[in-house]
């Protein structure tokens, strides 16, 4: 066990944990950020995706020690009001069904748009393929990412 400093959603937390504890459980249990979901614990479903310094990672296989000192963004911190361009697009395209994978989907999409503001279908599929959606909302996810890209482009910002 050791005390580490975690920067989550712009706020620093001093956390006492084993370095090897998956980041997922520290987020959910210690910090109470339950928007990040557990789906498999083996990096196979993507429901636990969070951003680490802007990059999408699977928090279930990321040791908390690895995240210490870096910027973690969870679904709760993507925007102050829950209306990031990707979230707005998600609502407009009515993407969510059961919603369980959606935090992971949205963060992965946000990471994608962060590096590639105007992805094509193939690029979207490549980036999103690791996040499973059993409801099969993939078509709408693709449309929503295009919409978010367009909106962000129209607004003159990435």
């Amino acid at each position: 066990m050791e005390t580490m400093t975690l920067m989550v959603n712009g706020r620093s937390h001093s956390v006492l944990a084993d370095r090897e504890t998956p980041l997922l459980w520290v987020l959910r249990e210690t910090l109470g950020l339950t928007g990040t979901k557990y789906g498999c614990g083996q990096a196979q479903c993507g429901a636990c995706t969070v951003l680490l310094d802007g990059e999408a990672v699977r928090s279930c296989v990321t040791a908390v020690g690895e995240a210490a000192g870096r910027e973690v963004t969870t679904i709760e911190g993507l925007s102050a009001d829950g209306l990031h361009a990707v979230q707005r697009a998600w609502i407009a395209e009515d993407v969510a069904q059961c919603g369980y994978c959606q935090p992971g989907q949205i963060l992965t999409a946000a990471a994608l748009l962060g590096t590639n503001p105007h992805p094509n279908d193939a690029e979207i599929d490549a980036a999103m393929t690791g996040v499973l959606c059993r409801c099969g909302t993939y078509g709408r996810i693709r449309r929503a990412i295009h919409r978010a890209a367009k909106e962000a482009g129209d607004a003159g910002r990435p």
Partner: protein
Amino acid sequence: MTEEIRVSLTVNGRRHVLGVKPNTTLQNLIRSRLNLTGTKKGCELGECGACTVLMNGRPVNSCMVLAVEADGAEIVTIEGLAPDGDLHPLQKSFIKHGALQCGFCTPGMLLSAKALIDRHPDPTPDQIRSALGGNLCRCAAYPRIIEAVRSWREFDGVPLDTRPRIGAERDQERGTSVVGHSVTRYDAPDKVTGRAVYTADMRLPGMIYAKILTSPHPHALIRRCDVTRARALSGVVAALTADDVPDVLYGVSPARFDERILAKDRVRYVGDEVAVVAALDEETAERALRLIDVEYEPLPAVFDAEEAMREGAPLVHPEDPKFARNINTHVDWHFGDIERGFAEADHIRQERFTGSRTFQAPIEPHAALARWEHHGGKVTLWTSTQTPHYVQRMISRTLGIPAGNIRVIKPAVGGAFGGKAETTPLDFCAILLARRTGRPVLMKYDRREMFQHHRGRHKQTIDLKIGVKRDGTITAVESRILLDGGAYTSYGIITAYYAGAMIPTLYKVPNYRYEGFRMYTNLPACGAMRGHGVPQPRFAFESLLDMIAEDIRIDPIEIRIRNAMEPNTRTCNALDISSCEFRATLEKAREASGWNKKKGRLPRGRGIGVGCGGFVSGAGYPIYRAEIPHSSATIRVHEDGRAVSLQIAAAEIGQGSDTVLCQIAAEEMGIPYEWVWMVECDSVLAPMDLGSYASRVTLMAGSAVQMAASRVKEALCGVAARRLGCEPGALTCRDARIFITEQPDVAMEWSEAATLAFSQSGPVIGTGSYRPPVLGGDFKGGTVGTSPAFSFSTMVAEVDVDLETGFVKVMRCLDVSDSGTVINPMTFHGQVEGSIHMGLGEVLLEDVVHGPEGHILNPNLHDYLVPSMRETPEISSLVVDSYEPRGPFGAKEVGEGSILPVMGAIANAIHDATGVWVKELPITPERILRALKENRPADDAEKARSEPAMGVSE
């Protein structure tokens, strides 16, 4: 950011290693980090005991232990008292004895009790009082708690059921299966295990916390209010001032909306709300409050009702010419011919009595949690309220949200007593901040803020004059009352009317004059508190009646009997008394207390006294004018036919209404109590009900439930009649069977009829509603005091007064109630006992005191004294046979009415013990000593014996 410290501790048998801040309390570690919310927050100062846990086997206030101090410790919380799914014998004993009401103190109480029985397996009542004396229970279930702890072993190894205990109280026998029986409380199992969820126990994803900045001045103009620095603090999500909230006045009575969500340009008492900050955690929100820059221009203030009326006194609401001279409400009532009444009197006496500012002090502080639903502009509010409907309505009106879009949910409420009957700034601010931030917002008052928000009892100064004939018959009563209302109206208009309206209900008063002035002052606003407006005038009346009885040498009980109200009477102020067994309560109290052997025959220092009271069974009119049912209910039969759900928005606040309503439903439908699910107090799930105030639930909500249940019964009898080949009217439903009344063997199972009904025509749903008859006189304020039925009660108290110190020990209280049919004797007597304790606090201990600058000097449970278990006298609660035709199964009010006799009875007993009258509340040792010094009672008594005492004494 502070470095965290490693703490390793065992909680309920499980080891935890956590990082904590140096200032984290054990209480916060348990509640926030381990999510064990059975440990309650009542004061955070080690005064109330609600947070008691066991630390290495010893009870501690977890709010007073730092988490780091608990390093290496073994902690037991309420969740760990018994293995999962089981109950400790103490918990079973609490359930079976009805040793809880609101349940907020229950976890702490149980852990203190556990520590005691570990040391003393067979504790004596004195050991129990001593060990549990630090755990305050404002519902005052003390007598039952003592009994539950004393007899805990009886429940060892005994399985729990909901049936009445053998030998449990059973007052009246009306041939019913469920009504009239002491079934266990519906909510008791959750309340003894820490599972009951109160508003502040709730956690929602993304939830943030908000705190309100209040005025440090009793009266000032706000020149500037700048939240820039607060907003800039890391962790702050939003900050609002008056500029950010709707500029709309709100309040309770539509005639006087005078409050703002946040003060706009003027603050009117120390505690007036100025700005609010939401942050990721409470500590940050509190820190941010200190970064708000407010520039005040202090103004002269007024703190006394009499001063406030003087020409030239500072005006609390100068913007409204209606409130010149600070008169908030003026009542001017004349009934009969007061002059003729006094002219007919053989003896007249007038005295001045002064009450105190008492506070409800529920152990659960107010809390509100709001979440916007992102769907069609809807919001959900969880709030610790006793009137969810009025909260919904006031939010709708003030914030401009359609009422149907506001979902109000009342979680468990940890005591209310009138203090949670109005919409608070917490409700408004939580909703506004949740909309602003898109996140759920939790707000709660701490103990000091509770006192500042107040809405407690008005302090009244009462000039009361009674005229009687030689035989004690009352000919006229005149009452002039000055009420200190504080800075806002709250319930005060109604209070001012109630202070006069209820006086003629107990005794026959042919001629009555009442003039009331409710005054604005720069103190926290007063509102409705148990007995609403009536306890102090009743104290005055009962004291003055005893003085008169002494003057004309009539026994105090006898003079009451001679004037006692009779059934089916219209009072001089047009209140319709339906059932009334007041006289019987007096006679029974006289007999059961051994009055004739004791009155005037006890040694000096010991005394006996009588007092009486009575109250409405629900107000005849809602707070706002509307032609609506006052209560409504829906009952749905579950498809297996072996359960029903009762959906109602009447508010269980500890008084036991859920239990009583389930009993009424079960009795009417002829099914066991255990079959009923209570779906309570969620405006989405249950139809409208006005809530819990004015002692309305049993009669009004009970009637709505009875109607809904009778409609279910009708539906099932229709199905059963076809099967059994008879008319539906020939059937009886009882004990889960439906049978032909004349041939009980021709029957079918209730569940079979229910499943058949579902398969034939879908869901079986019964709806019911209640509206009172047209009541009251055609004069201003004629609606206040109206009710379909009135309760009556008599209390005889015995006290022991230490003539050296003035200390009063209450030895015995015997209460006899006329409350109609008792639905559940266990919860009924619990209400009476609780009311008696609150009355004892009010007469002997309680007073909110303000300093010269309008600050509260005792805003905590250490300096503001409420009765603890150590002050519990021997209490007997009895009933007389009574039946109220307007109530469900003959029931009417209990619980508010029973506070009313207490103050008079104690004052009269103290007089019997000492020979002096103390006419000022609370009757403290200092006041008794002063009176003893001034009055030289021995001489007076001599005089009284030697002279005939007729004539006028003023």
